């Protein structure tokens, strides 16, 4: 299972992509990630209502080939999406890359 978070906008206007694959994680971290993915509703939320708000795309590619995706603006994350995005973006596990 590969989880990808794209965050764009903000005052910096940068696109940040963070990606994590559960195959690369130790067992506790993989379990945490699975728990967060299971708790996340993959539906789109409203785009950011403010200039310089962040925009997000969260996608999960499962090993069976299925893909789930959610796009939403800052402050409009669907249930569970904020926690999953934060875990991937801010945690120590993801590979991060700047740019479109």
């Amino acid at each position: 299972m590969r989880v990808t978070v794209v965050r764009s906008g903000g005052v910096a206007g940068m696109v940040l992509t963070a990606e994590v694959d559960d195959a690369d994680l130790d067992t506790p971290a993989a379990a945490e990630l699975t728990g967060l993915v299971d708790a996340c509703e993959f539906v789109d939320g409203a785009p950011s209502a403010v200039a310089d708000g962040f925009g997000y795309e969260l996608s999960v590619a499962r090993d069976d080939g299925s893909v789930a995706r959610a796009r939403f603006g800052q402050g409009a994350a669907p249930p569970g999406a904020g926690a999953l995005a934060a875990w991937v973006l801010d945690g120590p596990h993801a590979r991060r890359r700047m740019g479109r």
Partner: protein
Amino acid sequence: MSSGTLTVVNRCRCTIAPPSLLLAVAEQGDAETRDAALRTLLTSVALRSRRSSFGPTLRRFGLSPADLDFLPAQAPDTGPENTVYDVAGGEEQALPGRLVRGTTDPPTGDAAVDEAFDGAAATADFYREEFDRDSVDDRGLDLVSSVHFGQRYDNAFWTGDQMVYGDGGGGVFVPGGLTRAIDVIAHELTHGVTQFSAELEYRGQSGALNESFSDVFGILVKHRAEGIDAASANWLIGEDILEPSLGGALRNMIAPGTAYAGDDQPADMDAYVDLPADDDPRNDNGGVHINSGIPNRAFAEAARALGGDAWETLGPVWYEVLTGGELSRFADFEDCAALTVAVAGERYGGGSVEQDAVRGGWEAVKVRLRPDPR
């Protein structure tokens, strides 16, 4: 968040009786009451810096604006309230948080609080002193800032009625970086000014103009606060607040695309990045933070050619274009270019060095100059 919930400071806006009531007293009371009411009325007028608009009322009492000169030239507390809140790691639903510094309070020692306070004050002072604008909305909107938003949050933004600052430290900004840069603070507050004036749609070229006006007034607030000359300025937005591994600044107005590794701002229309304004976050609402490099550079080239204090040379031209009512909310770069050239001509004369500089700025970025749209 309404100012009514704050500790009431004894300020003109809260304590003056309605002008209509004072007028009635001034007209009907005995001599002593009349004098008191009139004096209060005149004081309120002076404090609100609206002498000119009060001409008809003054004339009813046989007075002229010059008769107000007995009042202190610089009345205290003429600006809006300036308050800072600590949202203590909370997010949108927790705003604004706990009040930690009011208008007349001394510094708190929390750098984020004090920098947000000072940045809001400097920006409001800039707009009032340079353009006679009464706060963000030109109607005295109180300045509200919330700091310590979220966890290591790498953003600062204007919500539509207040400022919000994360702490940074999330991999993009250095910790504390988002309140440290006065141009970033002024950039965000200028989104508020645009909201209450041209209302530029935040997509495509009108969105890039929205971004660019924020950078232009952001840098002008910084230039004015630090006495920077347009000829020698480095034109960097958000200098030294990014993680050093990323780069030195958020944007470079004179050399777009060179601020940080991966900066993809175009320097002219030949390199315009045509992105759809869709829900894909990679497309940045049609490149609002990308193509803003083009009008940014047009301004910077023009201001650099003129040299001196850009907030006094071209600041008023860009301000008139943003707030004068002629720039459509769907304006594109050519609309904006034509208006800046026209306004520069009105202000400085057709063929003036200022108008030539503005024209040269747009030519440098290869935006086609149409004849005066009016």
